[in-house]
């Protein structure tokens, strides 16, 4: 009895192994001998800058998750633009920010025959296959906020250049701490592509002579989770007693850090800046916790992404460097290298202007 069962279970295990081996084939693929993917040519066909924007385009927004206020605002900006070009707007997305559920939504959208899919990627690679399939089925792909690999989309609408963010953030903190002292960065997650690019450039920026007295002591990760960011801020202040300032280039992080500081003995003594929304930060700017912070307008970002998509689908642009298109109230934009369109420099909010912004 025992032996027969063991045999059977052993057989199951063997089957499993065999299956893996079977599906694996016998090539011996290692990291060294597998070539990297060839970057596909992205701009095909010729652009016709004079082509009119088509009416009735089906434009779908697929944010990282549907329950994130930042994306709600961005998608509403997109909706405004789609209405202006007389298209059909749709917003779908997973309730949690996971790449696998985004894939399932991309497939659905492609199945529904969308003309344009505007998405913000939860993972630069994971949704690539699905996007390429959707592209093959005729959809134009625009990414915004968080990019995928360049070969998986036609246009990436970047909120601001990484360089612009880095310069802005370092300048803000330097002004606030009087040009010298220890600072720390409170980031989102350690694999957030844009965060890492910004942090890298901030480090470069700090090497400039005018910032020579500022020392970056550490980078902490709050995982874009409110409570975690709160705890990390607390940890930073305990670990680095001489800390003068914190940069938190993520909306969740900066709000959590501001809330911690405003309720602690460090209020006003340790400076905080970063990227945050005026609605979240209003309270802390007014009570003196935060002097100034920055952000682009998420609504404008969505608006521009929708226009870029419409221009692609109408044949005005192909995503090649140098293509130009008009984006309604925002004016004319030029496609840069790798199909990147930049929205513009970030807006700085302080107690003088914050009440003019509602998002």
């Amino acid at each position, binding site marked *: 009895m025992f032996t027969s069962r063991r045999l059977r279970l052993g057989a199951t295990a063997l089957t499993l192994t065999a299956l893996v081996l079977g599906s694996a084939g016998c090539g011996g693929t290692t990291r060294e001998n597998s070539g990297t993917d060839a970057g596909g040519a992205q701009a095909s066909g010729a652009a016709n800058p004079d082509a009119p924007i088509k009416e009735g385009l089906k434009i779908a927004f697929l944010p990282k998750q*549907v*329950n*994130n*206020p930042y*994306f*709600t605002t961005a998608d509403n900006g997109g909706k405004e633009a789609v209405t202006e070009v007389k298209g059909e707007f749709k917003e779908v997305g997973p*309730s*949690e920010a996971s790449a696998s559920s985004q894939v399932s939504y991309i497939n659905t959208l492609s199945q529904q025959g969308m003309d344009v899919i505007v998405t913000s990627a939860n993972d630069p690679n994971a949704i690539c296959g699905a996007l390429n399939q959707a592209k093959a089925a005729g959809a134009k792909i625009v990414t915004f906020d968080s990019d995928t690999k360049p070969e998986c989309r036609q246009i990436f609408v970047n909120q601001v250049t990484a360089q612009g963010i880095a310069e802005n953030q370092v300048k803000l903190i330097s002004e606030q701490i009087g040009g010298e002292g220890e600072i720390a960065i409170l980031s989102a997650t350690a694999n957030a592509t844009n965060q890492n690019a910004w942090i890298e450039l901030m480090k470069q920026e700090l090497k400039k002579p005018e910032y020579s007295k500022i020392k970056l002591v*550490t980078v*902490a*990760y709050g*995982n874009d989770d*409110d*409570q*975690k960011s*709160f*705890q*990390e801020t*607390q*940890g*930073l*202040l*305990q*670990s680095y*007693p001489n800390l003068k300032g914190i940069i938190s280039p993520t909306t969740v992080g900066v*709000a*959590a850090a501001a*809330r911690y500081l405003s*309720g*602690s*003995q460090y209020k006003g003594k340790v400076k905080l800046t970063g990227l945050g929304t005026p*609605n*979240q930060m*209003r*309270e*802390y700017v007014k009570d003196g916790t935060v002097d100034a912070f920055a952000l682009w307008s998420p609504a404008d970002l969505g608006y521009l992404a929708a226009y870029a998509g419409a221009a692609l689908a109408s044949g005005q642009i192909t995503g090649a460097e140098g293509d130009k298109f008009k984006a309604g109230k925002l004016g004319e934009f030029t496609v840069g290298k790798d199909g990147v369109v930049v929205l513009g420099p970030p807006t700085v909010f302080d107690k003088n202007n914050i009440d003019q912004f509602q998002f």
Partner: protein
Amino acid sequence: MSLTDTGVTERIANTSPPDAGRPRRRLTERLLAVRELSLLLALGALILVTMLHNDRFLSSQSIKDLLLGCAILVILAVGQTLVIITRNVDLSVGSILGLVAFATGELFLAAPGTPWPAALLLGVALGAVCGAVNGGLIAVAKVPALVITLGTLYAFRGIDYYWAAGQQINAADMPRSFLRLGNQTLLGVPVLFLVALVVVAAAGFYLHSYRSGRELYAIGSEPAAARLSGVPVGRRVFAVFVASGALAGLAGVLYAARFGTLDAAAGTGLELQVVAAAVVGGVAIFGGSGSVFGAALGAVLLTTIGSSLAVLRIDPFWQQAVVGALILAAIGLDRLLAARMAARLRGRSARGA
């Protein structure tokens, strides 16, 4: 069988002469004492190590942070303890907390003049309603709590998401008096923590001194026997879920006051930490034993681990792994201690002691 009707009175009057039920009661009591002591030791060691690394860890500011940080988890752990003692589990607490927190924010948006005590009561009531849904489904349909609360974990969270629809409530939308509740201190102790202490004390007193409280243990150690000896099992289990829901509601309101920024994802995944706190605190997952004090200590320990890791600059990714390892260690240790004590007791009775 030790905690059926006759056992209840004896437990209160601890001096009654030994009988058949006695060794097992003493066993559980000693186990609990051992557990609470070892938790305190672990907590002390952790704080000591962290403090050696960074002496600011015990500054008044950071103690305040710590107490503030654990208050919500402590309240949830108390509710969970009540449920687990009856051999059930409530996985929907995180979702109830999220729903109530968001509802509180919405309440202030809709009626900015609402005094905060009213918001508190409404939040607790909403939580109790959610708990009644759980309890009702479990008691009426006789379906396992694990499955029902897994389902309502989705359902309550879904309602929350649906309601919020990507909207966020900010600190500016809520009255100052309410937000101050989340940060205020009384004699240096955060109000939130005092609330948690009151909850722990009340639940502890109830479990120890009320007949219906003792009956919860009876239900957990042997439901069939409890039913036979006249304990209204269905009603008690229902009440326990309502209580757990109400406490999650209370935690939700306090969450809103403390964090100020609310979206529909508040409290996601918290159920795991709550169960972990209870289990680490010595509440037996198979029911019938455990105390709210242990669970509260478990919650404090888990929170302290989180803060220590941040202070020690240990990769935060270890935190979740540590929580998991702690759960395993705690239940493993329980089993080991129980086996040892049982063996020792057997040995003693064999010698005629």
